[in-house]
């Protein structure tokens, strides 16, 4: 199966963040987390994750803004991004923004894994 895939999770809600970490670890991923949108760029550059999970609603900057920032840097531009949101209507906006997937809260473990796998596979097909 090769080396563990790495996932970076950015969510301002601590219980959600910890749960996501737990869910992903149980499913065999290496996980980095932060509760602050401003850490996204630094952590992405440092760890080069295979996929980034971004909460859409965060106090400092929303998920769309963070993904824009990530896209501007060549090192992080290619990393697939999955948005976590409480609204399924985000999908329309996501379609036009090269978002690899949208996870609607609250989600099942299987959904989470499927979404992460699809995002990483989609990226490897594209490159």
């Amino acid at each position, binding site marked *: 199966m090769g080396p563990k895939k790495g996932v970076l999770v950015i969510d301002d809600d601590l*219980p959600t963040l910890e749960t996501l970490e*737990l*869910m992903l670890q149980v499913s065999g991923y290496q996980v980095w987390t932060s509760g602050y949108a401003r850490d996204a760029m630094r952590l992405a550059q440092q760890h080069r994750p295979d996929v980034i999970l971004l909460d859409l609603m965060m106090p400092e900057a929303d998920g769309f803004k963070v993904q824009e920032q990530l896209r501007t840097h060549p090192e992080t531009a290619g990393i697939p991004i999955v948005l976590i949101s409480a609204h399924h209507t985000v999908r329309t906006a996501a379609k036009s923004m090269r978002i690899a997937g949208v996870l609607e*809260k*609250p989600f099942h473990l299987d959904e989470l894994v499927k979404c992460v796998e699809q995002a990483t596979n989609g990226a490897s097909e594209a490159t």
Partner: protein
Amino acid sequence: MAAVAVALGPGFGEDQEQLEQLIHVEWRVAWLRLAFVVGLAGIIFGLVDLAHPKYRPDLVVVTIVAACSHAAVQVLWLFRGHRHAYLRAYIGVSFDFITVTMAMYATGGYQSELYLLLYPLLVSVAMRFGLRAVMVSAFLCAGMYLGAAWLHGDPLERSKDVVVLRILVMLVTAALAGGFHRELARRLGVLIQTRKMRDDFLMVASHELKTPLVAIRGISQVLDRVMREGSTERALLQRVDASIDRMQRLIRDLTDAARVDAGTLTLERDTVDLVALARTAVDEARLGNPRREIKFRSNEEILRVDADAQRLSQVFANLLTNAIKFTTPDKGPIVLELRREGAVALATVRDKGLGIPSDSLPVIFEKHGRSTKTPAMGFAGLGLGLYITRAIVLAHGGGISVESREGEGSAFTVRLPLLPEPRVAAVPIDATATE
């Protein structure tokens, strides 16, 4: 000698709710601009009219309340005693009557383009009969018929006073129009603000309510993964999961109902196969209710509709859940049946359950409008399911109806417009046409 009247339509002065219903959010700013431009055009039209060398103005005037007051004007003309003027005025006023009536009906929706087309056409025809008509169209604001002002010229008289009066009237009407414009802009500003606050609240409420569920569900599933198969703890966890599902549905129904109220229920449309979608809905209902007999029937292999798959699944889930809830297991199967009727797909969920008393039938699609017997029987739920179901179906351009007899069961039928069949192309043109 000359009379001036300004007619106010029914639109102005209504309360905020009615304004809100009448005004389409995305278009309101555009309509305001358009109305302003049309108003200016109306005034310029009038000035050009005055400058015309053959123009012989005498002012009489028009309308009291919207189009119906035209009848009064016709009588007024009749008593003036100019036979030719009467005839001409009668024809002219009739044209105006048609114009304004059509404008009113046309703008009942948001289709003032029709009015814009009709107005110059009909007025120019009216002018051919020697009449000059000016309508200050700024009264048509934000897609609503607010009222109008007319000026009619009598070709038999010439009077400086009348020219002056006429200019005066135009100024007054322009000022009035400006007043309407400002008032409407103010009201719309308030509306936009109110709506934005409500939308923001909805977003935040739904986010805040769903967020704690992420941790509960996530942890319960992680625990489920590490626990022994068949253990008591694992069985208990499944109950936690089922409760989260229920909580999630309640939150969804609450936020959906608020969206329906606010008119912000949006669809993520795509081409959807109704047969596959309904079959999945039945499979899921079977999974959730393993002891119930739920049948799926379809005469068609595929029924393509332009729809939001997630929302349509919600429709079928709601109807199936209701059928299961109000049917005891011994009363035979619940059936979801699909068929085609011309360009429409019909989906019927039928049960032989309790049925709905005839006095409750009219209200079941309303908010909290359950059957009169329901509360006493202690069925859970917020009473929002059918309200949301109906809103979703309507948003898709479809319809929903129910047939039910107390004690014999119910049949809910959803009608959805089908997408045109992708024909096998005999000629290349066909292929592009169906793309």
